[in-house]
Structures are given as structure tokens and as C-alpha cells.
């Protein structure tokens, strides 16, 4: 075995894991509060990527600077989706909850196709080629930034939920919808905000990914699947768990390529997922069951 390669893969796994974590945090929050799986998650992230792409192309603003705008726009998108669709389906049987969100993903994906065409767009950003040599290995600067911000955002979101007034209400609504209603919390509005927040982290993730990969309308789907895996690993509704789950998945997948064809690395993640569900269904770090 090649040690230098293993080291490089480990570094990349960790950095990729941070990004996985960030894409999953929003999904985890939305599940934790509403108990629904946002099947449109990846597509929302792609919308975030497009927004920062167009800001970059039209206004010349780097994705790191336009990140708040992307997050804000996707917050609104999430808020609207929750208030128009998701709030109405919360009491439906689970099988019925799946369809509207799958359909929402389909709509977002094809709206992107309609508006911006099928091209893979990959603009050069200030840092898209920056890398720091580290002995025989290299550390990708855009990934490092994405990783650091992923941790920062997750911690910030975690603290927001713990400390702020709205955060407390969100947790109350997550804990017991009826109870929250009884003590006068406008649960529908709180849900809107929670979905918006989950969406916003996803939009931010999109902005952070723009320097790393070309955006195209069909990119979203696989991110949704990966985010599932991460969320289950970390425990549904557990935000810090999602981050750690992302790291585990990133490192596992990356190191698996040492011995397996890369096309099989997803099999590792799904295998891991099944095993975790069977032996520890609450996720590695506990979550809503």
C-alpha cells in the first residue's frame, strides 16, 4: 500500500466529509422538526449553486461573498415550499408525504433546465485552482474553506437552536407539535422558518461547492441520496451528528478507493448505512426515532 496516497486520500476524505456534512445538516434539521424527508434537497442545493453562479457572472462577485445571498434566496424558497406544500401534508400517511417532495425536486430540476439550459457551467473563481502543498500531499483551498465554513455553520445553527427564542420554539415544535400549539406557538410559522433554515444551509453549501464542481440541472439527485446516508449515520435530527456522519462517510469512501474501484465506493456507503440501521437505528450519535 502506498502511504503517500493513503495520506492524500485521508485528507481529501476529511475535506469532502465536511461538505457532505454541510449538505446533510439541512436535511437533518428538516427531518428533526417536521419528520419529513426533503427529497428536493439536492435540487435546492443546485439552485444555490446557480444563484452564486449568476451573481459571479453578472456582477463579478465571488461565491464566498455572495454566499449570504444564495443562502437567503434558498431560505425564501424553503419558506415558500413549507408554507404552500409541506405544512399541508404533515398529517398525511408517510407514503403520501414522499410524493410532493419528490415532485418538488422534479420541478426545481427542470425549471433550472428551462431557465439556464443543460450546460455544465464551471466558472473560474479566485480560488478555484488554489492548493497548498503539504509534503507529498496537497490540500485544496476551496475544499478547506468549505470544510471550515461547514463546521462554523453547523455550530452556529446548533447554538441558534439552543439559545435563541426562535430556536427554542423550533425545538418545542419539533418535540411536540400539539403541545407547542397549546402554549401559543404558531407552529406553521415556526415550521416555515425551520424549513427555510434547513434550506438556507443547503443554499450556502451550493455556493461553497461552486468553485469545486460544474453546476448543471441534474446534479442534485445524488446529493440527496448522499445526504440521506449521512443523516442516518449521524442520527435523524441530530445536527452535529450529521457533521460527524459526513466525515465518516467522506473518509470511508475516500479510503475505499485504495482497494476498490471508485464506482463501488457508494456501495460501501450504502452497506455501512444498512448495518448502522440494523444495529443502531438511532444513528451513531442518537436522534429522533
Amino acid at each position, binding site marked *: 500500500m502506498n502511504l503517500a496516497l493513503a495520506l492524500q486520500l485521508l485528507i481529501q476524505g476529511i475535506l469532502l466529509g465536511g461538505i457532505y456534512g454541510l449538505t446533510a445538516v439541512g436535511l437533518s434539521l428538516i*427531518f428533526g422538526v417536521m*419528520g419529513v*424527508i426533503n427529497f428536493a434537497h439536492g435540487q435546492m442545493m443546485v439552485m444555490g449553486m446557480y444563484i452564486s453562479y449568476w451573481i459571479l457572472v453578472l456582477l463579478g462577485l465571488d461565491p464566498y461573498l455572495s454566499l449570504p445571498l444564495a443562502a437567503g434566496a434558498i431560505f425564501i424558497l424553503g419558506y415558500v415550499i413549507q408554507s404552500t*406544500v409541506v405544512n*399541508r*401534508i404533515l398529517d*398525511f*400517511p*408517510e*407514503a*403520501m408525504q*414522499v*410524493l*410532493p417532495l*419528490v*415532485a*418538488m*425536486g*422534479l*420541478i426545481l*430540476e*427542470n*425549471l433550472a*433546465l*428551462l431557465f439556464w439550459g*443543460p450546460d455544465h457551467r464551471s466558472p473560474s473563481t479566485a480560488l478555484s485552482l488554489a492548493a497548498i502543498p503539504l509534503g507529498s500531499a496537497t490540500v485544496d483551498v476551496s475544499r478547506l474553506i468549505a470544510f471550515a465554513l461547514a463546521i462554523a455553520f453547523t455550530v452556529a445553527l446548533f447554538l441558534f437552536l439552543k439559545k435563541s427564542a426562535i430556536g427554542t420554539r423550533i425545538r418545542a415544535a419539533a418535540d411536540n407539535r400539539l403541545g407547542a400549539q397549546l402554549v401559543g406557538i404558531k407552529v406553521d410559522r415556526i415550521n416555515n422558518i425551520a424549513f427555510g433554515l434547513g434550506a438556507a444551509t443547503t443554499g450556502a453549501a451550493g455556493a461553497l461547492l461552486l468553485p469545486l464542481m460544474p453546476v448543471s*440541472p441534474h446534479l442534485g*439527485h445524488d446529493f440527496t*441520496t448522499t445526504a*440521506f446516508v449521512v443523516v*442516518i449515520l449521524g442520527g*435523524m435530527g441530530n445536527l452535529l451528528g450529521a457533521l460527524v456522519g459526513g466525515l465518516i462517510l467522506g473518509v470511508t469512501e475516500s479510503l475505499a478507493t485504495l482497494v476498490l*474501484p471508485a*464506482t*463501488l465506493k*457508494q*456501495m460501501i456507503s*450504502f*452497506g455501512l*448505512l*444498512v448495518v448502522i*440501521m*440494523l444495529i443502531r*437505528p438511532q444513528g451513531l450519535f442518537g436522534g429522533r426515532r
Partner: protein
Amino acid sequence: MRRLYLLLGLLLLVLLLLPLVLDKYALGIFVMIFFYAYLGQSWNVLTGYTGHISLGHALYVGIGAYVSTFLAQKFGLSPWLGMLAGGLLATAVGLGLGFLGFRFGLRGVYFVILTISCAEIARLAVSHIDAVGSFSGIFLDFNPGFYNFQFRGNVPYYYISLGFMVLGSLAVHLLARSRTGRLMVAIREDEQAALALGVNSFKYSMTAIGISAFMTSLAGTFYANYVYYLSPNSMFGMGLSIDLILRPIIGGLGTVLGPIIGSFVLTPLSEVSRAYFAKGGLEGMHLVLYGVLAILVVLFMRQGILVYIKRALKPLLKLED
């Protein structure tokens, strides 16, 4: 009730006579209507009747398609027999998945994720098996003949798929009225309460997934010999899994007529909108509309279209509730 059966019989008669007047393209649309209605019906057994949500049913379609095609190419076995072999393997896989899910108490979202994971694992595994073409998939030879399950025109496919739909629905209808079917419904409604009444929920959940997997896989053989190309992504992918649940959900979950009505609404709609927006510049529009419609149906007809049709026909058919 008798009038309902009379009406259904009449409709069936019309469907039997349709090939006399329809062109090949229209027949092709009907083939897809029947195909998806049958798939929806098969999925309905596990999810609509027993309440375990599967989002990985492509797994069984893929097994049915690959097994019968592999046996036909390798040993010249007729797909009619290969279909049964595929069915058996699919049943075994379904039971294995069911064992993991039901024994370890994975319910709701967790069961959903289990089904997705298993389908994805199968997709990736098949992508690496050279004997079945790995990523490239399998290209079927075209040798028309009943033995080969291959035909020149669309008429035989029409009748075969119609047969699938009618027999599949009949089977589910009989199942739903049987002891087993009723116990499945009890599990769907409230598994704990069913347990308290002596219902062995594990056994009946396993029965449901076994029947569902078997039925689903038969459609795979049909697909293989209708489209002539199998690839891991199209046969085991999440896209197919989602496609096949849309119709029963829109038509009415846990009802025999739901998947059929859903398919009669949704399949032509997707064809017509695709055809309409085929001209350049509006690529993707039909899928947007498709998505909007799906959301509207779920929001405003939460029990599916069937309920509304029943309500409208009630005076005519003297239906009970």
C-alpha cells in the same frame, strides 16, 4: 356492487377491442398504461395494503429483467420460464430485505431508506458483473416468436400487458378479500393493535413483500422484451422506483382500482405533455407540469382520484361505502 362489476366488465371488453381501431403509437401508450398500472398494483400490496413504504421496488423489476434475459441468452430458456425464475429470485431477495427490516423493527422512514439502499447496492453490484454486461447493460437480440416473448407489432404486447394488469389486479382483489389480505390491512392501520389481536405481523409483512416482489419482477421480464435494452441505471435506479409509485398514490393507495386509474391519468398525461413540448426551447417543461400536477393531486385529493370517481358514480352504481 354488481353494477360496478358490470361496468368494469364493459370497460374490459372495450380494452379488448381497442387494438382494432388504434395505431401502434396509441397502443404503445396503452402498453405503458397497463405496465405501470401492474407495477403500481404490485407495489400496492406491500405499501398500499400492508403499509411498509418501499422506494426501492426497481430492485425487483431489475431482477426480473436481468434473470430472464440472462437465462435466455445463456441457455436459450424461454423468458416465459425465465420470468418465473426471476420471480423466485426476486421473492428470495424481497424476503431477505423484509427479514432485515421487520426483524429489526425498521419502520417508516427507516424502512424507506433500507429499500433505497438495497436497490442501490444491487444497482452498483450489477454494474460490476461482467456476465450481465456491467455498466454497458444487456442488449437483447430481436428474434420474434411467442417462445422468445418477442413480437413485431404492438398488439401482442398490448394483450400481454393488459393480461398482466387484469390478472394482477384480480389477484390483488382476491388477496384483499382474503384472510391474509385483511390481516395485512390491519398491520397497515395499526401494527401494535394488530399484534394485540394475535396477528403475526412479521409473518404477514413477509408474505406481503414476497408477493409484491414476485409480482413486480414479472414486469421486469416484460420490460426487457419490450424495450430490448437493460442497463443497471435504468432497471435498478431510483428513477424507476419513483416512477412506479406515482400512479397508485395518485389513483388511490391500498385500493385495487387506484393504480389503474392513476396510470390511466398519469401515463397519457406524461406522453401528451412530452409530445406537446417536444419542440425546441421548452425542454423540461413537461416534467415541471408533471411535478405540479402530482403536488396538486396529493394536496387536494389526498385519498386519490378513485374516491372522487366513486363519489361521482355512486348514484349510478348504487355503491355501498
